[in-house]
């Protein structure tokens, strides 16, 4: 019987970190992992965003001094990372909707590759259009 030779690997609960890392992952697994990480980060950012905009109630000086504190290179880098996270979560979100509602399970790997290519193009395009003033500032113009 062929079944006798097939060794079924058991998931060791005690070694769950090692088991999860060693598990072979294809595009779908990575999409799921990244979607989760970016999602958690984005809801965290939304809370931060509401908090930082709450200075609007205090009037011009309070708001603009708060905005000034977000112009440091650290926050500029975080803003770029935010754009990457938003793009991934949006494009993969569209991919999920297509998988659910447009028979996307048949072509979800292609969709995953397309969403990465579209994401990189959109990152460069939107990054250039919207953050071009930051690029100029970084290079001392």
């Amino acid at each position, binding site marked *: 019987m062929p079944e006798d030779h097939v060794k079924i690997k058991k998931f060791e609960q005690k070694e769950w970190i090692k088991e999860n890392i060693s598990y072979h992952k294809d595009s779908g697994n990575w999409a799921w992992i990244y979607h989760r990480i970016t999602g958690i980060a984005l809801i965290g950012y939304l809370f931060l965003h509401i908090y930082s905009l709450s200075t609007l109630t205090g009037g*011009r000086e309070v708001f603009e001094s708060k905005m000034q504190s977000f112009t440091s290179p650290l926050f500029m880098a975080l803003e770029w990372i935010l754009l990457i996270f938003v793009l991934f979560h949006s494009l993969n979100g569209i991919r999920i909707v297509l998988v659910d509602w447009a028979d996307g399970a048949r072509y979800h790997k292609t969709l995953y590759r397309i969403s990465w290519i579209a994401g990189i193009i959109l990152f460069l395009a939107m990054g250039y259009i919207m953050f071009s003033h930051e690029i100029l500032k970084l290079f001392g113009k």
Partner: protein
Amino acid sequence: MYRYQSSKNSGATSWVLQRISGLALVVLMIGHYILMHYTPDSGHTYDAVLGRMQFSWYRIIDLVFVTLGLYHGLNGIWGIFRDYKLKPWLKMSILTSLFILGIAFLAWGYNIIFSIPYLNNITLK
């Protein structure tokens, strides 16, 4: 068949709403990014915000945006918790905490939007 009270809810409604709100957020996010980052000033000065908020449509869009964003985000967090086999009391505590968190930040966000004054005499550029 249903062992717990909570299993009567299949989660289908929240699943559909998660997709609809997600698609709406993609559209809103494109507009938001262009509006806030097209020029350095458009998103980050008090005058720009004040000028924009004179139009009630911007306020309505922002109200919808913050509502959908919080719903989608917290429903997503709840979805993560639902992946694990949690004790019913823990499930209910997490759900209640997320609900309170959502209501609090929603009220905070609404309060910010409504606190921006309408000006009587302004010249709009």
